[in-house]
């Protein structure tokens, strides 16, 4: 991948209130870029320097458009900073989050956070289909064919949830885990975000059930819920 963006600007920008944004070393900038490429999902939706998805605002010059506090708030808890956003909160070590915030906000004016509202409370009413349309379809396609409008900007084709062959080999738990934890912990592409800190567990199971309707298939036999025991198990003894 080419260099992701121009190096963070020098720290000579006028500061207003709050802590000034400190410049990152060249190494820290390079490390942040490496993490953006391989560890965190930001570039799945956002582009930086021409690389990345197009389903969310371009971050190349985000520091010139947004205050440092806004950037911090969005990276830390997007739903709180911008109620109604589809951007998930990404789990990561605190030091990594600080590095990415510093990288994205280098040169930004501190400024006060403008928006602070409680999280939207209607999520439990949403169906699997509507959740899929809202959070998944941009990449995976409305019908799970892996060709959503954002897909062509991604380095690998998003999973095709409508493919019964591939989906029959994946357990429901695996689908849940992928939505919950994102691509990184499962060894898949890190641009698939984790929704475990954004959606409820019930919502994620709704998404899994919807994916099963898209493929018209079930997971492998070993992964399906067990029918009632056919014999009386002997109580285990220590």
């Amino acid at each position, binding site marked *: 991948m080419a260099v992701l963006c121009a190096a963070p600007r020098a720290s000579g920008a006028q500061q207003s209130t709050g802590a000034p944004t400190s410049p990152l070393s*060249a*190494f820290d900038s390079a*490390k942040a870029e490496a993490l953006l490429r391989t560890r965190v999902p930001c570039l799945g939706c956002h582009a930086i320097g021409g690389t990345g998805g197009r389903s969310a605002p371009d971050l190349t010059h985000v520091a010139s458009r947004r205050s440092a506090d806004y950037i911090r708030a969005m990276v830390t808890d997007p739903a709180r900073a911008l109620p109604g956003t589809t951007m998930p909160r990404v789990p990561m070590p605190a*030091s990594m989050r600080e590095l990415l915030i510093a990288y994205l906000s280098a040169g930004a004016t501190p400024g006060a956070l403008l928006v602070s509202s409680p999280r939207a409370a209607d999520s439990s009413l949403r169906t699997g289909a509507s959740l899929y349309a809202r959070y998944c379809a941009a990449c995976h396609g409305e019908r799970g064919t892996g060709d959503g409008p954002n897909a062509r900007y991604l380095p690998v084709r998003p999973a095709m949830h409508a493919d019964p062959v591939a989906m029959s080999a994946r357990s429901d738990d*695996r689908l849940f885990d992928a939505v919950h934890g994102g691509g990184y*912990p499962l060894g898949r592409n890190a641009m698939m975000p984790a929704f475990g800190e954004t959606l409820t*567990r019930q919502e994620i199971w709704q998404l899994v059930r919807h994916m099963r309707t898209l493929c018209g298939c079930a997971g492998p036999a070993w992964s399906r819920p067990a029918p*009632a025991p056919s014999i009386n198990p002997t109580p285990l*003894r220590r």
Partner: protein
Amino acid sequence: MLLVGRRRDAGADPLPAPIGHAPISIVARADFVGAARCANCHAAEFAAWTRSTHGRAGGSPGTVPLLAKFDGRPIRFRDALVTPSVVAGGRYQFVIAQEGRAPLTLVVDGVVGGGHMAGGGTQGFVTHHPDGTIRFLPFELSRTPAGWFCNTGSRSGAGWQPITASMPLAACGDWPPVRALGDVARFANCQGCHGSQVEVQFDSSARRYRTNVASLAINCESCHGPGRRHVELASSGRMARSKDIGMPPLATLDKDASSRVCYQCHALKDQLQPGYLAGDSLERFYSLGLALVGDRPHAPDGRVRTFAYQETQRFSECYRKGGMRCTDCHDPHSQTYRDVNGAALPGRLDDRQCTSCHASLADRVEEHTHHRVGSAGSRCVACHMPYLQHPEVGGAIRYARSDHTIPIPRPAHDSAMGVRSACATCHAGMSAAALDRQVAAWTNRPRKPLASSVAAQVALGTSSLTSTSALALLAGDDHDMARIAALARLVESLGAGDNGWLDDPVAARLVQLSDNPHPDVAALALAALHLARGEQSATRRVLARALTRAGANDGALRDRWGLVLGYTGDRMAGQRQYPAAIAAYRKALEIVPTNLRVLVNLANAKRDGATDAADLASAIADYRRALQRDPAPALTLVNLGIAQAAAGDTTAALASWRDAARRDPGEPLAPFNIGNVALVTGHLSEAVAAYRMALERDPSLVPAHFNLTRALVATGDNAGALRAIRNGLAFDSSNVEARQMAVQLQRMIQTGAGATRVPSARR
């Protein structure tokens, strides 16, 4: 397909020569700065490290907490009292007292281990040996049971045993001390893992080994690599402007590169090249797969069968089908536990190590575990990472590692693999069949199948290979370790002409695998083809293409390929199948033409299998070729001398052995062989002196004890002969002839009778 046709070509086409390589080591000892330099800027990481098991892995005896007091209370053997004590100046030592011998004092120069392992920690001690190596002492401490033990593996094969008053000192395999720190081909060794920046080289001018160890703890640079450039950049103020901080950032490595940092020590590995230091390419210096050739450290599913490390995680689905790396669960600075997103966890039993990835299971624990939530049996690691006692160690000393293959409990399968299933850890009274019925009743559905390549190995068991089973072993899913194990099995059946299974379809599959990105897989496939069909033009074209394809990076492939062929030669020679051994060694030299070890082993095979003078002359010529480049030639000179003696040139043989003794005063085989010539030519006092010199260098050289017995009997010193044969029997009590001789000598001494026949030397 390329390999059809069986034409044997009279003149084999030469394979491409190695491409000139730059030096493979990019690290020098002077590049390391020591942990203290890191503390200035990285105080938090340094503080965490000092409390960690790496930070407390070893050190000098006054600074490392000891698991036993050196208070003068002796360790009692049947034939020795070993007294650990602290003497004036704070020196820690063992004094070994044996009847008829002067007490021997061994200074404790270092302590290795602190008993940190949850599955049974141990602590060992090292001392500077006169030859310049640093060697482990045989007396070690265990936590469970608490006390002294020693490793009897190389003597009685009983594993690790508590030291008792009925045990002779020589029951300890490390008596006399033979395990050296660092990679020393001549000795059993611990590679570079019981210390930091461990280097051992034979210094031909000083005629002894030179050992450097930065620390017996595992320090910062053991993982991060050398810090000199980093410190220079930081000190110069250029760091802020440089993307290069003088060392690689470990946090952004992919899962394999990240795991290799840990596999420097937490893995079985075979040395390809000497001289590795942290920061060098691990893959260039070591193979992490070829330890499976000629050995079965793992069951087919990866679980420890003899002795292994946490490299077994490469068999796990979490690694193979997920992204699991060591640092997902282990904080590298503190060695405490954390989840995949870096959140600290309170301990090794915490479920979040698993549920931070397997989140689907977090809210239906009981449904998944069939154990009450919160109970010991409901913990993820209780079923999926049970502690497995290492079988090679035996059962007397607790030494178990958490199973990093992260299996699903399959009690019947586990039992068939020789592994205690996780279920049996708690439900010890139930049979494997009963446990398996219980699991079946719970799941009541098809169970998750084993990986197909593992299943093929299980199905084959110990049966002989056929074309069908060979293809099954090589087919299947993308499981590198199972594939390496399968290829190792195939290679092991080659070399002795047992190639019936290697028909064209199998050969075609081997050709496919010869292009595998895993260097061990490719090397094994190429070695198999080379061994089985290396005389055929079509095969040679495949071999040549592989070498050409590797280009300037052919060294890593060649070293692995040569290692497999060399191993095959060793195995054939061990079975006295010398023509097959010679063929394998010659093929190895086609691939690694400058490998001295292979060249010397080729000469040994020619010598030991010689049927005429020409064979011996050829062997002698090979030894001389090796000596032109051998930096530590004593052993090669010993072997040359044996060939010269076999050819009838005793004068030349003696000159070679004297030369060996001069170049390495610590080499016992030089005086031993000089003694043999003296014995057969009737120069008895010279023989006695030579054998005693050999035994001073290696008291466990059993043939020297027995030959000394012969020499002493011939001189009429029956009492000395009796002592000598008893000393030999202490190390080899199974020698029936020697036992009878000892009885006879005893009787002769009592009755004042004359000499008798003595047992011949056994090498």
